[in-house]
């Protein structure tokens, strides 16, 4: 009996195993029943929508608004004119494997889909915005072949770098085509973090949303056109005019921004200023001096002196008197700040102003990508240059509208007090602010510099484009030939991982992957 059972047992096992070679279950077994393998491309878009805005420590330091005077190894950054991956790669790493990958995938998922034309246009506009920032930061970058390792396979593992001017030309085309393709009778992208159902500014219908994105797209086109002001003013004029005629942002209700609730999501860049070593971080002297010189009503929102710079969050009511603000001089090392002629130590840090971590640098501060203030100030310059109609009068109007809108924008920040219309009027009429044709470009772009706080990419790019404000070069160790950082070098790992394309790109941008090579639009 036992014998028989055993025989049966072996027979069955053997049969099962022979059959096992072509186990029908294998396909089921190798399918993860819990994995999401199909997705609404709109969700990928909104997952990628909060794109990299530029960091405090890199772009804002180069633009002399912010300083980390500590040179203790890992913090040797732009204040010391150092060419270090740690500070160069933020936008690169924040874009290619993040927003670009997901937007490229979303666009691919929409291939052949005629129902969702508006989503596709929105994706194209926003992707153009990301690449514009990458070109402005690094010059030539991978563009046409980027983000497609999965979609197109191993030939796209090591993308070639594309010429910066050629990328810009394609971005112009993309923006124009995408804006043109926006259809008020088409699909509504409810998920849109800017203008969707739960967006910062709710629209609710395709027509209303398309109107907003049309303005946003044209505003980006305006930004793109203005970049040509040094290298090709004629081209600049034509693009700016096209953008203006297409319709740009008209008020703060058009702003592209998101809010942070402070629980599930916080403002990440600002977290860097308070989570670790807050005493590393200060407002820069040129920025504070500008605010003080004009008695800028935005000053209390921007800078403050805290009881102990090592624990600014422990001081909910810091000193925000304009007269008491002092910025850390650029290119000075922390050990020197402790000694005369500098203001010396205070608490765990130094006796200088820091960014106001309760307002502009708060964990719940919103992030703005494109604002009406920026648009209005750019239009002021365009009008002043005669690229759009209206002449000096229009320029003055755009200029004042831009400043006014920016001051009003702070209503969205925590702990920001309201500035009365009368105070704004006083400010607009005060010396150093009041519009005059002779100083128009300086005035406009100095205001843009302030407007662009927390959008480091733009603050730095517009400074390079316009040359304003007239900052003094940081001469630390004389590493930049007496100039400014004009671009950030490529990530070191590209040299190893994408060597051939990297070396070709370095050749194409002039032979050196350094900080002083210029982006194509940044003509000397």
């Amino acid at each position: 009996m036992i014998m028989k059972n055993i025989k049966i047992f072996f027979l069955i096992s053997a049969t099962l195993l022979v059959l096992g070679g072509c186990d029908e279950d294998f396909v089921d077994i190798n399918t993860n029943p819990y994995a999401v393998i199909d997705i609404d491309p709109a969700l990928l878009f909104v997952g990628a929508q909060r794109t990299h805005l530029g960091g405090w420590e890199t772009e804002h330091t180069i633009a002399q608004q912010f300083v980390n005077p500590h040179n203790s190894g890992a913090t040797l950054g732009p204040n010391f004119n150092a060419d270090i991956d740690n500070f160069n790669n933020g936008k690169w790493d924040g874009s290619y494997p993040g927003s670009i990958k997901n937007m490229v995938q979303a666009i691919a998922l929409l291939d052949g889909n005629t129902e969702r034309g508006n989503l596709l246009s929105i994706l194209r506009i926003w992707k153009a915005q990301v690449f514009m920032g990458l070109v402005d930061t690094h010059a030539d970058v991978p563009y046409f072949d980027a983000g497609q390792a999965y979609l197109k396979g191993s030939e796209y593992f090591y993308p070639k770098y594309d010429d910066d001017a050629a990328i810009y030309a394609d971005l112009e085309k993309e923006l124009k085509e995408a804006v043109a393709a926006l259809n008020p009778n088409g699909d509504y992208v409810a998920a849109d973090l800017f203008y969707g159902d739960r967006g910062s500014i709710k629209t609710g219908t395709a027509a209303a949303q398309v109107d907003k994105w049309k303005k946003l797209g044209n505003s980006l086109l305006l930004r793109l056109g203005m970049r040509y002001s040094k290298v090709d003013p004629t081209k600049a004029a034509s693009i700016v005019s096209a953008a203006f005629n297409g319709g740009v942002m008209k008020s703060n209700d058009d702003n592209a921004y998101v809010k942070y609730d402070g629980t599930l999501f916080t403002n990440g860049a600002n977290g860097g200023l308070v989570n670790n070593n807050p005493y590393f971080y200060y407002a820069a002297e040129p920025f504070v001096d500008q605010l003080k010189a004009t008695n800028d009503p935005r000053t209390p929102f921007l800078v403050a002196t805290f009881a102990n710079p090592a624990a600014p969050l422990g001081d909910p009511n810091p000193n925000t008197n304009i007269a008491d603000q002092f910025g850390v001089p650029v290119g000075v090392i922390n050990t020197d700040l402790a000694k005369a002629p500098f203001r010396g130590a205070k608490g765990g840090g130094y006796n200088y102003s820091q960014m106001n971590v309760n307002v502009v640098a708060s964990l719940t501060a919103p992030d703005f990508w494109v604002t009406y203030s920026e648009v209005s100030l750019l239009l002021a310059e365009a009008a002043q240059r005669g690229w759009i109609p209206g002449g000096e009068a229009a320029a003055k109007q755009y200029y004042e509208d831009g400043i006014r809108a920016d001051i009003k924008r702070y209503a969205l920040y925590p702990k920001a007090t309201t500035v009365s219309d009368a105070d704004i009027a006083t400010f607009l009429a005060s010396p150093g602010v009041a519009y005059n044709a002779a100083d128009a470009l300086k005035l406009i772009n100095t205001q843009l510099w302030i407007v662009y706080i927390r959008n480091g990419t733009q603050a730095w790019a517009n400074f390079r484009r316009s040359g304003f404000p007239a900052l003094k070069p940081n001469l630390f160790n004389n590493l930049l030939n007496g100039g400014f950082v004009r671009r950030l070098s490529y990530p070191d790992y590209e040299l190893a991982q994408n060597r051939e394309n990297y070396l070709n790109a370095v050749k194409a941008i002039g032979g050196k992957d350094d900080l002083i090579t210029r982006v194509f639009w940044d003509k000397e």
Partner: protein
Amino acid sequence: MMKLTKPMLLLLALFCCLATTKAQQITGKVTAANDGTPLIAVNITVKETNTGTVSDTDGTFQIAATPGNTLVFSYIGFKTIEITLGNEKNLNVTLEEDAQSLDEIVVTALGIQRESKKLGYSVTSVNTDELVQNRTTNVIESLEGRVAGLNITPPAAGAGSSMQIRLRGQAAFAGANNAPLIVINGLPIDQGARGVNGLGTPRDLGDNLSNINPDDIESMTVLKGATAAAIYGARAANGAIIITTKSGRKNQGIGVEYTSSYTSQEALNFFDFQTEFGQGTGGKRPTSGANAATTGQFAWGERLDGVPTPIFDGSLQPYSANPNRLFDFLQTGTNFTNTIAFSGGTEKGSFRASFSNTDAEGITPTNEYKRNIINLGINQNITQKLKLQFNLNYTNERQINPPQIGTQGPGAVNFFTRMATSIPLSAFKNSAVAANGTETLTSGFQGTLLNPYYAIAVGQKYENERDRFLGTATLRYDITDWLYAQGRYNYDYSLSFTESNDPGGIGTSVPTNADGTFKGGYNLSEGKGTDVNADFLIGGGKEFGIFSVDANFGGNTWRVKNNSFNQSSSNFIVRDLYSIGNGSVRNQSYGFSQFRVNSLYGWAEFGFKSMLYVNFTGRNDWFSVLNPDDNSEFYQSVSGSFIFSELMKGMDWLSYGKLRASWAEVGSSNGVNPYDGILTYGIAQNQFNGQTTASISGASAPNQFLRPFSVEEKEIGLEMRLFGNRILLDVSAFDKVTTDQILDVQLSNTSGYNTSKRNLGSLKNSGVEFLVEVTPIQTPNFTWTSSWNNAFLSTEVLSVGEGIKDVIVLNWGATGNEFIGQLRYVVGLPMNQVYARTYLRDDQGRILLTDQGRLIASPDYVSYGSSIPKHTGGWTNSLSYKNLSVGIHLDYKLGGTVISSTALNALRQGHSKASLVGRRVGETGVVFPGFYRSSGEPNTKAVDPAAFYADYRNNQMGDIVTFKSDFVKLRNISLSYNLTDLLRKTRALGFVKGLSLTAACRNVAILYKDIPDLDPEAIQSSGDFRSGYENTSLPTTRNYQITLNAKF
């Protein structure tokens, strides 16, 4: 579980009372069978005890034994025999000559016992005495330096940590499972090292070998090469370690064995930091408490003078050195292990049941490791032809607060080795908690340098509890006397539960989040795995005159299913209350995976005149994880052995000689994971302002065409016993090429993805292993055996993909918590190259500097060497005099490279002696002996040392922080005394069958090393990604151990 021991002790007492049989003196004489000459110094032992004697010059002997005991007579050059005693008191024994000692039986793959002479590949049977005499918490650690080609690397990671086990090198690139297959009673399991890998939890959670109690091990065989393990097919790439646990012996009666061992561990201090300068920056001491609180990490202050100076808590403390803080913080580690085993046997079967309890405390306060193991083995002949074998091993392990290591973040070692020496330990202890309940700021690296006293004060907790159940049931039916069939079912079930909290006040001065809730987190996770192997085997052997044939055919199905839950909460409503319910943000996830491998296999062996053997194996595996259109792989091997001493019988000096050769092609599907080929999306845990968002999951571009990688290994060997077995020599040479390795190819991240798995890599490991064992002295009372094993390993990366010359496996310098260097695979160079930048030099080799006298790095990274030691080995000496035996073991690893984060941080923060250059008497900074790049003139500018040394980190220059990882250690000294004879003389204790006491000391001394301030074995990780990278491990320990073994 501790409660269980009480009834067991009662039971033990009962057995003692029942055991009334008395020992009596047996006398006799041993003679040679062929000519009747008396045999001198024959070893005679009472089996299962340590009682023994040797025969006299006239062959006579006298020994105390009881009826039923088995006497074992062994003599070099003669066959060993066993005689079970009846009531006789006089015994005359004849031994037969056995010049070749061919009968050694080893357990090979699939648990098949085979005669050693037939094997065409290298195997090493582990001397299980070494496992119980030099006990380690993880059983495999005691084999370090004992088996040629078996490279054990124990990370310094606390009680119950994992081991790195590599046989004949690292067979595949990092990311693959490069540990040998562990087979316990026929149940194959992965080593499953849960070591620290730099990212994720910086705590080592042990490995699966810690499920085995050394006292339960009957035999352990190391199958070094692919051929030996070939029958395991896709799991054989790294060789195998075959463990059989005890299941009692037939005709034995009831026996009880009790083993108790106590170990104390003393942390070893190799630090030799500077004690001349105190806290501060720019050559100035702190001016106030607040100032001190942000510079605690820097020893760039003034020369120590004992003058009261502010420290981080505002108090004034003498400005003097406190060099031993870390070791004053650490404690003595302990390990108390008790095992009790019952065994018995009748004519038809046997059993053994054991229970073992380990209670260990690590050298970091609050670190505990607790383990209970129940092991049961049953052998039963159901009928004459049908046999049942049943083994069960249940382990319950608890790791409490395993130390945080391997990261420039949390952990006592990182903290105390990076804080200025002028801050006393008492201040860290007494001022750990600030007035608002957060961690008092102690340094400028808040969030990175975390005061461990704070974590202790607020009850930071990390606890992992694991249950593991390994069960094997085997039915074997002998169909005829030459043919059998066998079926086996293996069940492996594991359950792991982890609970941890992150106190909100660690590394911050603000107790609340932006939304007003309290900081902190609480995490629970549970993972469950089942791993079933069912197999059958039909086999037999027959002799045809001078020819013999053995053949087996079998099949296996391997089914694995894992699932896990994770739940975490944060943003607490009630401060410091760690519960899911208290969190206003809660996250949860569920992980699931399963796969199956079906296999058919067979082997056949042909023998000729007991002199020549050839063996073929073949195995076909079908994988569920592969593309269904092409999911099968065939693996094969051939090996042969030639016992040439059969042809040289006249030569007295040669007792045994064998040549062997083998070739195998095996593989590993490791690295092809379930669902690998499919792109998946992740929906974000939390909605953004109410809006659902999603993104592509993972940073790897999926590849649906992955194949298992393959390993081709060739091996030749020579085995000889000379001069009556006084000299034993075993040499192997092997050449192992791994191709189509699954490599996480580093993409340009502009492609959107950081990596993609590809079958690209190819790698060669080749080497020579030898073992020489000599018995220079053998007299009736004194024996000295000395053995030396050495493995020479040479590795070479053959390919990392078409057109690619090197691959950055991991850029340590960019991981965020590691600061320097890279691990690369470079075609044409040995595996595991440690890369960093170096000094920029001109054509004449002169070091170039900036006009300010600062360092300039080379644009490219350069190799500093391979992390893999070229030579590993050990020298073991066993001496025995009457009842006393002594073991002395030295081991070494030579030829590897390590880059030291500890050295880098100690330098740039002013702690190491190297950082004194530039601030010695008369110096005003570092005047580096280099030349200006601009003018070529020699440098004369002095640079502030803090800035100068920071440039090594900023520029990623490895020049002064890269060392040889070489060491020679006096690993172990053990002293064992057998008290059985003494007891025998005391009538009342006659029931004790055996009693021995062993004292051992592990890590006695480092005889040679290169790296300063550290034990070269103080490495962080048992994995392959941090090979060659040192970063804040625990200090290693010297262990003192005493073990008592008693048999009744």
